């Protein structure tokens, strides 16, 4: 016998009441090893207007490529101070920003390594289900062979790859275009 998963419903416009207590936009406390990065961007709708009532949830491995989760049984160092979870709201102009460390590569199909990436959930008024996407890193040779990027047509792949901004190697920009030209690639997850 199988039950059926509960239907998703939108977070609506007022989710901040319920979700703010768990906001995390600085994922890595001082002392957590890894390359420090910041990722900033905007969430935009099909008219190019900012989405001020969105929230991103991010999930990533530590700098060694190990997740803080019991099912990650890889023999790699755990970092107890690094949980790998972030919850970042957009502001009145649809902007978000979070700081973290660059994740290490984790295994994918056939134990081939995936390129370093951050898993992202997008929640907003108007989204009846969450949207799932990924953030990849610029100048990463492993992007060429990453299995998930390989599922995406070359012309849309760029929507998943952050780019350097502001002349600082660790400062990255990545945007979420919900609809229309330049629409971000979203996954059926």
């Amino acid at each position, binding site marked *: 016998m199988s039950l059926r998963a509960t239907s998703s419903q939108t*977070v609506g416009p007022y989710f901040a009441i*319920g979700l703010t207590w768990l906001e995390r936009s600085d994922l890595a406390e001082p002392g957590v090893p890894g390359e420090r990065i910041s990722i900033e961007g905007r969430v935009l709708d099909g008219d190019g207007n900012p989405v001020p009532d969105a929230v991103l*949830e991010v999930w990533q491995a530590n700098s060694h490529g190990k997740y803080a989760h019991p099912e990650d049984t890889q023999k790699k160092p755990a970092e107890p101070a690094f949980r790998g979870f972030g919850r970042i709201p957009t502001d009145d102009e649809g902007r978000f920003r979070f700081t973290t460390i660059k994740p290490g590569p984790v295994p994918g199909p056939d134990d081939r390594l995936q390129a370093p990436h951050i898993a992202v959930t997008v929640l907003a008024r108007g989204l009846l289900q969450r949207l799932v996407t990924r953030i990849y890193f610029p100048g990463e040779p492993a992007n060429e062979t990453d299995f998930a990027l390989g599922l995406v047509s070359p012309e849309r792949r760029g929507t998943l790859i952050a780019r350097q901004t502001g002349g600082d190697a660790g400062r990255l920009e990545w945007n979420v275009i919900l609809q*229309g030209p330049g629409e971000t690639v*979203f996954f059926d997850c």
Partner: protein
Amino acid sequence: MKHLAGYRRPYPGTQPNYLSPLYRSSIKRAPTEPLIYLPHTLSEVTGPVFGPGDVDVKACDLTHLHAGEPLGERIVVRGRVIDENGRPVPNTLVELWQANASGRYLHKWDQHDAPLDPNFTGCGHTLTDAEGRYRFVTIRPGEYPWRNHYNAWRPAHIHFSVFGPAFATRLITQMYFPGDPLLPFDPIFNSTPDEKARERLISQFDWETTLPVQALGYRFDMVLSGRESTPWEAK
């Protein structure tokens, strides 16, 4: 690492379409490109883990977070978080938020002309126990008007957020109340095509949950994606 089993995808019709034009906010926010099927990897079968150190034990009683008692009808909402295989989902974080008894949210954008309640914030959280059970004490939320269409009113509802064991099992939903006359007219509730899936969003009045001379009880179980029984293999 050994091959990891992925999580099951939703049964057709049981999840809302991103584009549901009667819910106007979806029109400019729904993606137009088809979603790309992502086989589950270690990134999707893991997910954030929360424990007792992350939660406030008082946050499961929304009626005792302030100096006085909130206005409205006290209710108990309890249920289980289980997966599609019927297994309990223990120790998982459940968050909830809602309007007050007058149908007003404590939010700067809620301009509904109904009073705020200084004794009611409208948010809570808890962890499920070893059997996947959760329990909240709160106030029955009021219905409220919104601007989706002429004379639009949202049925009474409580928002729920559940993580489950993996990134792939994240669920955000809304719980409704039995017999609400607004349900047939609500474009959010009706965005889910499957009638039975919609009905499962409606809580059930429950004598066993009801507290004598104190609070009516409602049951609301939430089902998360179940694990595939066969190990997932790359195509």
